[in-house]
């Protein structure tokens, strides 16, 4: 009975427990349902949000696509291999291919062959060096075969996964390129025209100067003959007119040279005060003749030597002072030189030329410095001259680093002034002497060859040489000159440049190749253009004498280049003379005036060099590198001792080459040394003799 109760209770408990469990499950199920419902709601709202975002994205995409499609620039993207993945319509138009033909193709496919290499470099740089953005221009060939230029900025873009692609903004710059090329062509044309003009001027100067030279020369000679008063007067007029013409020609030439940027500045050391004094003397006479007072005021300057272009400064002052005298009929002319500043390296000096002349009208002040702008044509008629003086002076002052300025009151006078900064010059002991002195020093043992095709010029030079008692021979062209040189024994050659049959350049090269003796050859040239001088130097000439020249000019050249025994004392007192083809600076430093030492070394060199070179030749031909190297090292210093520093350098090159297996290089340097030694021997030879002669004379 009791057991039955227990069982009943057990069943009852289990039933209730099951019910309880069902209830719990029910409520859990409900909970689950609600959670599910809210999850669903969440889902819907999430989908909504995604929809909205997608729409916004689509909108912005279409916005950008619109921008890209309507952009006036080419916009494209490529993958990391440079293959197109997108290109906008402008791009498609520029390339001239259809979109299908472009997409998937490499950019390189469209670029002209000639630019493939640059293109590759461009992309590799972009890819590897991580260059973010770089502008470059490429020519592409469009479908119709025409070349289009594309200028582009390419961006390297890195995706989150590390891979890269490129996007580019480019522009069809074909039109610009064409314009550029047209401009370039126009520029070239202009340059060619300018060159032609310069050539014309140079030629003209030659054509005019040559006869002018004869006229001036002849009038000089004519003056030395017996003349009656009338003849003398005519000759004076002739000489004056010729000088005026010469002035005009050189003015025009100067202007054109300065304008073409071809005016050279020849810096030399000269005495500034002496230059002023000399000018003043000349112009004081002229001023006094016109009844004018002429005064020069010069500030005391310690070192009066300056480094500048003497010729140009002289010309500036001649033009300014000449004008002052010309345009002043009464009163006074002042030339004022003031020291503004002087320090260790430079001195600054101002120059003023003041007159009490006609003055310059206010409205003319601006144009007065322009070429061919003399105040008025009336002025020109009244005062004469080319009207180029002020323009040249102003340009030359600028060339020397200053500015020519003007103060003037019409009818009262003018004042021109400028300031220049000079480097200090070296003080020289002695200066040029008179022609007479030169003539006296020349002895008739000096022998000169004159090579000149123009008969009048021949006559002019020969008359002067006769007057000075200098032996001479004439050659009518280059060929005759070479023959004459072979047969005769000359100390100096004057050589015209342009001659029939064989010109001066060729004749000079031929004479130099004969290698007999280092005879000075002086070019006679009507051209003052630097290029001609350069050519002359390259062909082996020693110096120039510009036509037309005065007897003094000629005498000075003869004095400068005649052999030591004929040189005057002032020259001999200066530094030991080494051939300019040697390293003169290093030789002067090395021997420092010890001529005997220098002679010793030069002689030693001559006695050694053949054997030493022979030993080197042997070692090289046997391919014995070690001993060749030893020998190269051994002989290296002897070249420096005679100023052949270049050969010393070749020896060093050879030494280095011998350390390698590069037989080509070894041969190259060896031959350089061998050739140089053989070629320079005559120079050393004659220079040795010169030093010897010099020593015999002074001791």
């Amino acid at each position, binding site marked *: 009975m009791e*057991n039955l109760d*227990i069982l009943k*209770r*057990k069943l009852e*408990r289990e039933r*209730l*427990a*099951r019910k*309880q*469990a069902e209830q*719990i*499950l029910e409520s*859990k199920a409900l909970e689950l349902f609600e959670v599910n419902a809210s999850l669903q709601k969440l889902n819907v709202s999430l989908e909504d949000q995604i929809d909205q975002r997608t729409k916004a994205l689509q909108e912005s995409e279409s916005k950008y696509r619109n921008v890209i499609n309507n952009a006036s620039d080419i916009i494209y993207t490529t993958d990391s291999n440079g293959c197109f993945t997108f290109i906008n319509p402008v791009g498609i138009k520029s390339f001239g291919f259809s979109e299908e033909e472009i997409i998937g193709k490499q950019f390189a496919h469209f670029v002209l062959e000639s630019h493939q290499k640059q293109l590759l470099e461009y992309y590799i740089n972009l890819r590897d060096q991580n260059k973010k953005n770089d502008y470059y221009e490429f020519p592409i060939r469009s479908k119709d075969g025409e070349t289009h230029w594309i200028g582009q900025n390419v961006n390297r873009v890195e995706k989150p996964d590390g891979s890269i692609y490129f996007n580019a903004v480019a522009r069809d710059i074909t039109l610009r390129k064409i314009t550029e090329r047209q401009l370039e062509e126009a520029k070239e044309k202009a340059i060619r025209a300018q060159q032609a003009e310069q050539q014309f001027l140079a030629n003209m100067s030659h054509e005019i100067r040559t006869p002018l030279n004869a006229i001036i020369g002849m009038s000089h000679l004519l003056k030395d003959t017996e003349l009656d008063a009338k003849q003398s007067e005519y000759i004076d007029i002739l000489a004056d007119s010729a000088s005026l013409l010469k002035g005009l020609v050189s003015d025009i030439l100067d202007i054109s040279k300065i304008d073409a940027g071809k005016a050279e500045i020849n810096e030399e050391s000269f005495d500034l005060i002496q230059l002023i004094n000399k000018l003043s003397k000349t112009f004081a006479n002229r001023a006094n003749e016109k009844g004018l007072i002429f005064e020069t005021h010069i500030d005391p300057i310690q070192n009066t030597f300056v480094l500048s272009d003497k010729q140009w400064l002289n010309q500036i002052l001649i033009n300014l002072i000449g004008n002052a005298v010309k345009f002043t009929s009464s009163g006074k002319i002042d030339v004022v030189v003031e020291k503004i500043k002087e320090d260790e390296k430079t001195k600054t000096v101002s120059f003023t030329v003041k007159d009490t002349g006609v003055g310059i009208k206010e409205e003319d002040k601006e144009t007065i410095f322009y070429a061919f702008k003399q105040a008025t044509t009336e002025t020109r008629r009244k005062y004469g001259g080319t009207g180029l003086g002020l323009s040249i002076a102003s340009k030359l002052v600028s060339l020397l680093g200053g500015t020519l300025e003007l103060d003037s009151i019409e009818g009262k006078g003018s004042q021109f002034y400028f300031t220049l900064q000079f480097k200090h010059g070296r003080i020289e002991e002695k200066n040029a002497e008179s022609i007479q002195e030169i003539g006296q020093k020349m002895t008739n043992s000096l022998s000169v060859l004159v090579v000149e095709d123009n008969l009048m010029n021949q006559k002019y030079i020969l008359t002067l040489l006769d007057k000075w008692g200098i032996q001479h021979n004439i050659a009518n062209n280059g060929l005759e000159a070479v023959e004459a040189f072979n047969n005769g024994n000359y100390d100096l050659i004057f050589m015209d440049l342009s001659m029939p049959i064989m010109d001066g350049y060729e004749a000079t090269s031929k004479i130099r190749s004969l290698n007999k003796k280092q005879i000075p050859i002086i070019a006679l040239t009507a051209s003052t253009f630097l290029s001609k001088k350069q050519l002359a130097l390259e062909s082996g000439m020693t110096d120039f004498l510009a036509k037309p020249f005065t007897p003094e000019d000629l005498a000075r050249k003869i004095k400068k280049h005649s052999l030591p025994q004929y040189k005057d004392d002032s020259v001999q007192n200066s530094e030991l003379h080494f051939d300019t083809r040697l390293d003169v600076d290093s030789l002067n430093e090395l021997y420092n005036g010890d001529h005997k030492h220098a002679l010793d070394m030069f002689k030693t060199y001559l006695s050694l060099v053949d054997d030493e070179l022979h030993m080197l030749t042997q070692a090289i031909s046997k391919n014995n590198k070690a001993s060749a190297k030893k020998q190269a090292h051994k002989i290296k210093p002897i070249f420096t001792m005679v100023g052949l520093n270049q050969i010393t350098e070749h020896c060093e090159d050879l030494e280095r080459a011998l350390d390698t297996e590069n037989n080509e290089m070894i041969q190259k340097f060896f031959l350089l040394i061998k050739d140089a030694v053989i070629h320079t021997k005559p120079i050393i030879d004659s220079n040795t003799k010169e030093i010897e002669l010099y020593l015999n004379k002074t001791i």
Partner: protein
Amino acid sequence: MKGIVFTEFLDMVEKKFGYEVVDQIIEDSDLESKGIYTAVGTYPHSEVVNLLMNLSDRVKLDPTLLLKEFGKYLFDTFLASYPQFFNSVDNAFAFLHSIDRHIHVEVLKLYPDATLPKFESEETEDGTMIMTYKSPRKMAALAEGLIEKSIQYYKEECTIQSENQVEDGSEVKFTIKRIG
């Protein structure tokens, strides 16, 4: 306290002492739940204490000993229901460490209203495991039974020493040493 503790406890009593005793202790205890338990329900902790005390009275056995036996019994239930917790480790100490760090954490996810003890476990350099039980329900004996069975399960041999850290038994330190 989760219903599973009650249903398993009464199952054990029925198995060991017969349903008669189950009926008696339910009738003896004045239970709010009237002794109607389902594994998914939640009931006051005091009821399990009540049932245990009445059982102890009835069968004249130490309640601590009974609780420990219940622990051993419960282990088999856990093993049958949650084999994944036992497979994830390969030795007893690792398993014991995992109770607090992993098993009870997962239990709490399943039954957010579960009231679980806190275990702090550490191993000393000589290979001894110290496990400190902390719970206001003071059922360290249940833990001891579970620990013992766990060690057996991994076929290891250990000595287990327990030591009250707090007199009322709410904090007990187990020192478990491997033999051999």
